[in-house]
């Protein structure tokens, strides 16, 4: 079916009411960088599409220790903020300039692996997502948002409206390793955030992209460095644990074998970057 209607709500309530009216067949699109190629190729043939570019869902606001990032905030806007350096680094390593001007932070959470590099950073930052629907709003940890390959906790009538990121995390590292330096899918993406107590790691979050059906955290690897001062043997234990825990896949870019191996290399390198 060629598209019969393109809906461009001007507010969140308008967007929600359109979703209610048209139900689950309404394709919701933000920057279009994932949906439009499929529509152009005739792979996706939606009848109705709702575009969020003008729905007022973009913008970044600091509220206390939390950075509120509107779901339709572009990656370029994310690159411009300096409250959370890890997110800047993640945005810088995602796609190309023109695509960053279009692609959104919210959309990044719906991008199947090996895409979704910003989502990996958000996971390491212990971000929360705010969802809105006819029954009101709820927030949940990003870790609970992902439920499987291209599936999530969003109800059919809910919309992702905001991502909330704590700005208190100071020690972070991000490495996206691809076959090229820029504008390329990840072989593996590693994002790390740690907090120290008396020089030792108190909490650690190690998130991986392209190493599972969605961005994942590797608990054993995190445990391997908690209580350490990131000595090299602790780092190696974490890298080894991450290799065991990750669930990589084979695609046109890399094999499962190579991705797993690179998880080890880049968890190590990212932790070494934290030390430096």
């Amino acid at each position, binding site marked *: 079916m060629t*598209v019969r209607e*393109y809906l461009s709500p001007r507010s969140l309530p308008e967007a929600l009411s359109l979703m209610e009216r048209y139900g689950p067949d309404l394709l919701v699109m933000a920057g279009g*960088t994932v949906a*439009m*190629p499929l529509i152009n190729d005739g792979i996706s043939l939606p009848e109705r599409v709702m575009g969020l570019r003008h729905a007022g869902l973009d913008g970044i606001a600091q509220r206390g220790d939390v950075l509120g990032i509107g779901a339709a905030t572009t990656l370029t806007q994310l690159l411009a903020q300096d409250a959370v350096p890890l997110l800047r680094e993640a945005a810088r390593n995602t796609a190309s300039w023109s695509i960053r*001007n279009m692609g959104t932070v919210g959309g990044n959470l719906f991008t199947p692996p090996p895409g979704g590099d910003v989502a990996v950073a958000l996971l390491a930052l212990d971000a929360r997502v705010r969802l809105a629907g006819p029954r009101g709003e709820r927030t949940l940890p990003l870790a609970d948002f992902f439920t499987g390959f291209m599936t999530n906790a969003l109800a059919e009538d809910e919309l992702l409206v905001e991502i909330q990121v704590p700005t208190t995390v100071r020690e972070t590292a991000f490495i996206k390793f691809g076959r090229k330096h820029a504008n390329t899918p990840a072989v593996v993406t590693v994002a790390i955030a740690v907090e120290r107590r008396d020089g030792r790691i108190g909490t650690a979050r190690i998130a991986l992209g392209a190493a599972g059906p969605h961005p994942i955290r590797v608990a054993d690897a995190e445990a391997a460095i908690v209580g350490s001062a990131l000595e090299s043997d602790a780092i190696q234990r974490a890298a080894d644990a991450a290799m065991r825990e990750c669930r990589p896949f084979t695609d046109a870019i890399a094999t499962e074998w190579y991705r797993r191996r690179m998880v080890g290399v880049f968890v190590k390198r990212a932790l070494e970057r934290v030390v430096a």
Partner: protein
Amino acid sequence: MASTIVTFELAGREVEVMVKPMTTLQAVLRYQLGFTSVKEGCRQGGCGSCTVLVDGEPMMSCLLPVEDVAGRRVTTLETITPDEGVHPIQQAFIDHTAFQCGYCTPGMIMISKALLDHDPHPTREAIVDALAGNLCRCTGYEPIVAAVEGAAQATAGKGAPR
């Protein structure tokens, strides 16, 4: 499938187009307005040959429903080409033979224009970063990087080209 009218700014004037829902800006520019510098290398956002500027920011026109640029200012290679002669970036592309088949060239010049508007004195690193979304199969990129460097030198101190 009712058509709607969309108005945006192009080449310093308002243009009004009647479009079927979700027609891309690329298709409107090429097939309704005859702005065929906007190329169709992939229509997947992967090659940059359709790069245009929307309110001065580079975007892939193949991924933009034209409804989304209503009221915005769209800049294409046609609109930056002077009535006589060529823009300094265009001249630099000629001087450095920064093209072979020419199919990626409009997009390359538009992303270069965006770069030099934002950063009149880009480092080589900034240039290759800016070019990362624009593919060329013929030149090996080096002549294009050299052309952007040349254009930056040619326009340095003269203010950003229009």
